[in-house]
């Protein structure tokens, strides 16, 4: 039975990995298509320089035309990608790969710390709500949650700059209300199950009920929420990093959009999407593993 379970999980993991690889390939080709058909593609700045002779300009155009056929362009793009070459940023005049290597750790650090803080605060508050179940607590937390949900992430970012709070704290403020409302409703739904009522009637302690009856029931959807919360926090990182002047991926994407730097923005998005998908696959597998092992 155990072997069967592990085999099916392994098969699922391999299927998800295959999906991830094909999606990466599709994303790369889609990115290449966007870059290829962007206005101004293949136009060399040097062609406008009057010091270059007509024959040199002609040679430059011939050189550019080499990779302008679509199959040839795809081939060169993918072979460069296989060697870790994501192209050159138009606005920053630097390799995209190098920019990503510099910026990814900064955003990753802020996102992970922000997520940790948001999860901690949302879980603690939801558990407190479960313990108290008073209308005043429920009304005040719902009002706070509703207020935070109504604030644009960019306004949270400006407030964070004014209060000199770190970037991860602003990310946590944006992610927290979305996590809290979901965690709270999951815990309340689990708490109202008949077997929990029976456990309470038999006089089991609150902590035992929580650990043995409520959390195992709520854990699989909570684990799945990890993937979603990653997407929310990476999305929130754009306005927060842009307005807080934090040199991460969000700020890079914003600069790329303002500078219409297509090679940079599509590659940043591709990398972020692959991270998102990997997080979703991990969360999904963790949820299934937990559901399989749950009593």
């Amino acid at each position, binding site marked *: 039975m155990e072997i069967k379970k592990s085999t099916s999980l392994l098969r699922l993991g391999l299927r998800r990995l295959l999906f991830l690889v094909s999606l990466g390939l599709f994303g790369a080709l889609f990115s290449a298509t966007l870059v290829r058909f962007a206005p101004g593609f293949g136009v060399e700045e040097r062609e406008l320089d009057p010091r270059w002779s007509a024959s040199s300009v002609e040679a430059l155009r011939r050189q550019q035309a080499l990779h302008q056929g679509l199959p040839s362009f795809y081939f060169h793009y993918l072979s460069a990608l296989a060697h870790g070459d994501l192209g050159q940023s138009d606005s920053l005049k630097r390799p995209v790969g190098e920019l990503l290597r510099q910026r990814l750790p900064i955003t990753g650090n802020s996102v992970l710390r922000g997520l940790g803080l948001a999860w901690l605060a949302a879980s603690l508050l939801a558990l407190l709500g479960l313990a108290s179940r008073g209308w005043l607590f429920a009304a005040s937390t719902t009002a706070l949650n509703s207020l935070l949900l*109504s604030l644009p992430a960019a306004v949270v970012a400006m407030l964070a700059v004014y209060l000199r709070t770190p970037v991860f704290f602003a990310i946590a403020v944006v992610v927290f209300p979305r996590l809290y409302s979901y965690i709270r409703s999951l815990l309340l739904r689990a708490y109202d199950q008949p077997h929990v009522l029976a456990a309470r009637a038999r006089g089991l302690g609150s902590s035992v009920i929580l650990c043995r009856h409520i959390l195992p029931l709520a854990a699989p959807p909570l684990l799945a929420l990890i993937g979603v919360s990653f997407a929310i926090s990476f*999305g929130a990182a754009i*306005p927060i990093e842009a*307005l807080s002047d934090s040199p991460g991926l969000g700020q890079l994407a914003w600069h790329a959009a303002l500078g219409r730097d297509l090679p940079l923005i599509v590659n940043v*998005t591709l990398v*972020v999407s692959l991270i998102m998908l990997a997080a979703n696959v991990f969360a999904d597998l963790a949820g299934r593993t937990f559901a399989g092992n749950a009593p």
Partner: protein
Amino acid sequence: MKPLQKVAASILCVIFVLMVLATFLLPAHYAQQFRDIPNAGPSPAHLLGTDALGRDSLSRLLYGTRVSLLLAPAAALLSTFIAALLGSAAGLLGGWFERIVLAATDLSLALPWLFLLLVVRALLPLDVPPLVSVAIAFLMMGLLGWQASVRVICAAARGVRDSDFLLLARSSGCKPVRLLLRHVAPNLRPLFYVQFFISIPLFILTEANLSILGLGVMEPMPSWGNLMRGFEDFSMLSANPWRLAPLVLLVTVVMCFQLVLPSQEVTQ
């Protein structure tokens, strides 16, 4: 409807009426500059004062309310229409069409919403007239914001696929298009309304984020988002709290939408 929901609905109605009557209420045109009184405080002539360029803040707020509250529902209508069409067809037809639609939905849901908008915005010219920037923002949100609704509508359409009334309609020779328009869509109409209303606050917040970042509605046309661009200096706001009016209005509207639809989560 609970009393709190009634209050929220009434506030929304009042704000929508103000938006419609904005033309008659505007003390001045939103772009008119009173160059001798920049950054003025509230006065009988300018109830919310003027901005750094001497433009009447109340006029800009009322006109900005109109832009934001027309843009978001219009984009929500477009995205709900696309979701209704794709979701109903996928749920009704099933098979490979449903699998393709759901795979495309999963694929686009994997991308963070703002990253997707930035990629599309980077493809389009930035230096455009204000009205074109409004149209671009509307099309971007409308054409890219349908994914979450498709899943819900597809699941509901799958539920009615094997119902008796559809079986009867099929047996009397009803074509798929007629099945979709005359039998499935009317049954899913309440769901379409819910998806439409859920999308409005989401698009209001998205417009605000894009405009604050300089990628949404362009100056001099006001919207709640670009009116909040001046918030970068919060110390100035503590001395002039009336400048917070666009934020107060935005938060009020989004909270009212959340109260009117209490069971749904508003995600950014």
